[in-house]
Every structure is written in structure tokens, then in C-alpha cells.
């Protein structure tokens, strides 16, 4: 672990040893990390590897979750990137209000969001009726599941992307313009690459949020069952022993994208 900066900070000039309070930081940190890792150790040690066979319903849940999450991310990127860019580059007088509204969507508890989606998009709402008229049911359908994932993940992506765009000095846009490049070219070749670390972080967060969304989906998209709802059903029907296969699948699907994005962003950083 990163013990070096702490050591350097607390180094007593005469002895070259860390000052007493800082000498405890290392052991305390190890303890805290160990505490946080207890659930993972529990999962690893109690898994019966020979009987780790997912059921047919589990595979359906995986397919549903991955498909819908990918689709949700496309929507979130397509809509969230311009919004984040607009929030980062304009200085509207309504900025505080816009920020508050964005935070509201982020801070709303998932269960509350699910209930509000049912109110806004459910079969008895004007939007729900209009959608149903066009042949699109927004309750317990793939479209409803997608909707739940978008609402659950978009605020995370937009906030991270806004921060990323804000951290790109406006000066570079100006220079690109004086070099004969229009706004679109400088967005693609200057702003986007300079913001990629933050954008990758936002994308990773959105992926994990959308994939893991339970509270929103439970209310408006109990069907089709994604991984979280299916895990809940497995637990209810068959007990804790039945969740292992899907739980491991959850990890295997959830982690690679954030890790790859992180590696990609950092790797590109070096040129």
C-alpha cells in the first residue's frame, strides 16, 4: 500500500522514523481495508465451486441485464454528453438551479425514483397512455427496464462528464479556433481527449449503476428480470445457496468494463 507519502510526511528530521501518531496509520489502514473486504472473503470461501451451475433463468437474467445496460449506456452517452458539455461550458445565470436539479436526480433514493417513474410513465399517466397508444407499454416491459436503467445511471455520467469538461481549459478551444478549426473538430480532437479520464470514470460509474439497479427496476420493471431482481427472486424462492452462480456472474460482468475503461484512459494519458 501507499505507505511512502505518509512516512515522508511524518518523518522526524533526526531519526528518519515516522512521528508516533502517523506510525499507526499503516496498521489502521490495513485493518480498515480488511474490514471492507470481509464480504468478498466470505463469498470466496463459502462458494461451492463444483455446484456452481447457473439455472436457465439465471442466463436469461444475464442476457437481459447486459443487453439493456449496453442500450441504456448508448442513450446516456448520446443524451448526457451534450448536456454535460452545455453545463460545463456555458455560464448561465440559472446555473445554481440547474446544478440543484441535476443533484436531485442523483440523490433521489432508487425506490422513490421507481415509484415516481410508475407515476409518470405508468399505464394511468398521460405519458404511459400515449406510449401505450403507440404500442409501447412502459410497465414490466424491456422498454420499462431500459427506462429504469437510464434514470438510475444518467445522473452519475452527467455529473462526472460535466466535471471532466470543466477541467479542460477553455484556452485550448480558443487555440484550436485560431488554428482554423471549427467547434466540432476541436470538440473531437481537443475537448474529448482531454476530458477522457473523467468521461471514462463517468461511463464506468454509469455501467455499474445501470447493471446493479434494483430499487427502480423492482417497481416498474419486475419483468423482464435483470440480474438484481433475479437474485432477489432466487433468494426468496430457494434461499441464500441459490444466489452463488448469478452473484459470481454479476461480478464478472460488472467489473471488466470499469477496469478496461480505467486502463484505457490512463494508458492513453501517456500518449
Amino acid at each position, binding site marked *: 500500500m501507499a505507505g511512502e507519502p505518509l512516512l515522508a510526511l511524518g518523518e522526524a528530521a533526526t531519526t528518519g522514523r515516522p512521528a508516533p501518531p502517523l506510525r499507526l496509520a499503516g496498521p489502521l489502514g490495513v485493518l480498515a481495508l480488511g474490514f471492507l473486504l470481509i464480504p468478498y472473503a466470505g463469498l470466496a470461501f463459502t462458494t461451492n465451486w463444483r455446484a456452481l451451475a447457473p439455472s436457465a433463468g439465471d442466463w436469461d437474467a444475464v442476457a437481459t441485464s447486459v443487453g439493456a445496460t449496453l442500450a441504456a449506456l448508448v442513450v446516456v452517452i448520446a443524451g448526457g454528453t451534450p448536456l454535460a458539455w452545455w453545463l460545463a461550458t456555458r455560464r448561465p445565470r440559472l446555473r445554481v438551479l440547474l446544478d440543484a436539479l441535476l443533484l436531485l436526480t442523483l440523490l433521489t433514493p432508487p425506490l422513490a425514483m421507481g415509484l415516481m417513474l410508475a407515476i409518470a410513465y405508468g399505464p394511468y399517466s398521460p405519458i404511459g397512455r400515449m406510449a401505450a397508444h403507440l404500442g409501447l407499454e412502459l410497465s414490466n416491459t424491456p422498454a420499462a427496464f431500459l427506462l429504469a436503467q437510464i434514470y438510475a445511471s444518467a445522473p452519475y455520467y452527467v455529473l462526472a462528464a460535466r466535471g471532466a469538461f470543466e477541467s479542460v481549459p477553455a484556452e485550448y478551444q480558443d487555440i*484550436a479556433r*485560431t488554428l*482554423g478549426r471549427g467547434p466540432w473538430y476541436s470538440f473531437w480532437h481537443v475537448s474529448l481527449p*482531454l476530458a477522457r479520464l473523467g468521461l471514462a470514470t463517468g461511463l464506468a460509474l454509469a455501467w455499474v449503476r445501470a447493471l446493479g439497479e434494483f430499487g427502480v427496476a423492482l417497481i416498474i420493471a419486475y419483468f423482464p428480470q435483470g440480474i438484481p431482481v433475479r437474485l432477489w427472486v432466487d433468494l426468496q424462492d430457494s434461499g441464500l445457496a441459490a444466489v452463488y452462480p448469478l452473484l459470481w456472474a454479476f461480478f464478472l460482468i460488472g467489473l471488466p468494463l470499469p477496469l478496461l475503461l480505467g486502463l484505457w484512459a490512463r494508458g492513453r494519458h501517456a500518449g
Partner: protein
Amino acid sequence: MQAEPAPAGAPAQAHAGPAALAVDLRLARPVALTARFEVRGFTALLGATGAGKSTLLRALAGLLAAQGTPFSGLPAHRRPVGYLPQGAGLFPHLPVWRNVAFALDGSRRARRAAAVAALERVGLADLATRMPDALSGGQRQLVALLRAQARHPALLLLDEPTAGLDPLTAENVAADLIARLRAAGIPALAATHDATLAAMADHVALLHGGDVIQEGAPAAVFASPACREAASLLGWRNLFTARLRAPDLLDWPAAGTTLRLAGPPPALPGAALCWGLPAGAARLLPPGAAGPRENRLTGVVSTCHVLSDRATVGVAIGGATLIATLPPLRAPAVGEDVGVVVPAEAIRVWPAAPARSPG
């Protein structure tokens, strides 16, 4: 000796040199500015921090809305200008060659070949694949220059090209930059607060209070600042308030003494004035030494900084401090009594009020 205040927006005294590009810009925001001057070869726009130099450059680049010429009405990406912000502004995520090739069109291979060829001409081909943060300040400046040159600009805008460099490096970087621009025949406007850079330029424009208060060849401008503010921008440190007692007699109340003036009277007796003296013009003498008696004052050495090529001496005369520069070997000690001769012909006098009202 008497310097007349510059008439409002007066064109420069014609002097030999490159063809002029006339600038006539008006801005309301973020700083109110009226700038009428000429760019001749390497032109220094000398102004204090916050005077609006960067604003003026950004307006010329089309990055800020302004009325006037040149390039009126053209959006930034259509203007034939190169813009080098403070610190050169290389794109940090692109290697050197892609920075140089940023404005070029064509295949990646062709752009790379063109960029490397440009880097070769200035001896930086080895740096083509380096990232900008691995470059020295001078190298960055040069790469930014190549990047801007790719568009064959009719005017190059440099914002504080020597800021952040130590004085010796700054002088070398500036000399190199000016030589390259002269060789390439590109007119340039460099915003700076550094009088040394201004002295190296082909032409100088002084920006103060939202106006260009004086312009001309550096030698002429440095010799005859048009007003107190101009003198201050040019690095004059001996600037004092005074009152004209008689056509050729100046009361210097801070020092409690009177100075004789040479030449025609600068104003009517009783006028509030400002006078200045180049630091190199004051002569220091031992207290009882022989020498001129006119404008001979006595004072006490209050500060003395000795450098390898000169000494800068502060002499307290009454309540005022006069700065004199002299050869280092003749530097007096702090606390020593000295005689100071202020040559009448070296004194510059201006009206006490600024020549032009700000804004």
C-alpha cells in the same frame, strides 16, 4: 527636453522598417479599450498587468467581440492570425508533431511528414514524438510558433512570450523569436509588461487606461516618453510631482528644493507638473568635489545594489529618493553623504494630469 503630450490616437512617427498593419479596435467588455496603433515587424504592446493587453490580442484573434479593423467580421477560425497564449498553449495530449500538424489537412502520413520537416528546419526533429510537458519553455514557444505558421498567418499574436522564464533565458528566447519572425517576414504583436522585450522590438505601442498613449520606434519612445504613465511603463523610476515657479525653475516639494530647466518653458508658471529623469542621467559626486553647480543637490545614500555591470543607488534627498545607475566600481556606501547633479537637459516634464483621460 519638453515632451508634448501625444495627441489622441496620433499615428506613429514614420520610421524606417517593415510595412505597417493598422489596428483600430474598440471594445466595451471585458475591459473598455480604444486601440489605434500600427504593427510594424515585431511590435511590442507594452502595458501594466490588467491594462487589457491580453484582451486586445484575443479581440484581434476573433475570440472576443470588438468593432474595427483588421479582420473585421471574420470568425476566429477564418482569421489569418496565429495566436500564442502565455505559456505557448501546446495541446498537452498530443505529441509535438501532432501539435505542429494541428492546422494541416490531408492524410496522417502527409501531415506527419510536413510537421517533421518543419521541426527539422528549426533543429527540433528529435522532439517530434515527445509530449509537450517534456519540452523547455523556449522549445514550447518554438513548437507553438511552427504550429501557428502552418496557416501562413498575416499577423502573429504573442501573449507575454517571455513570462515565466528567468531574465537571461527570457532575453535569449525573445532574441531568437524576433530573429525567426524577421527571417520569416511575419509581423507580430507581443503583449508584454517587460520593457526589455519592448526595447528589442521594431516598434512599441504603450497601452494605458484603455488607450494606446504612445507608439513609435523603441529608441524614440524610450528617449521621450509622452507622459508620466508612458515613462512609468518604460521603466523610468525617477518620477516626481512638481510645480513650475518660473519659466525655467521647477519646485520639487518632496525634496524641498528647486531645479533649473533647460529649453522653452513647459507651461505657465504655477502649473502642477510631473518631472522625470532617466536613472543613468543623474551624476553622483563626493560632497566637496568640484563639478557643475547648477542643479547640484546633496543627499544620503539609502540603498545600493551592485551588479556585475552596474550599481543602482538610491539617494534620499529631503523626503524623496532619486535613483541613479553608475559603474559598479564607483558605487558609494549606504549612509554616505553624496552630491547629486541633475543635468537640466536630461529632465523631462509632463503635465501632472495624464495626457489622456482613461477610458
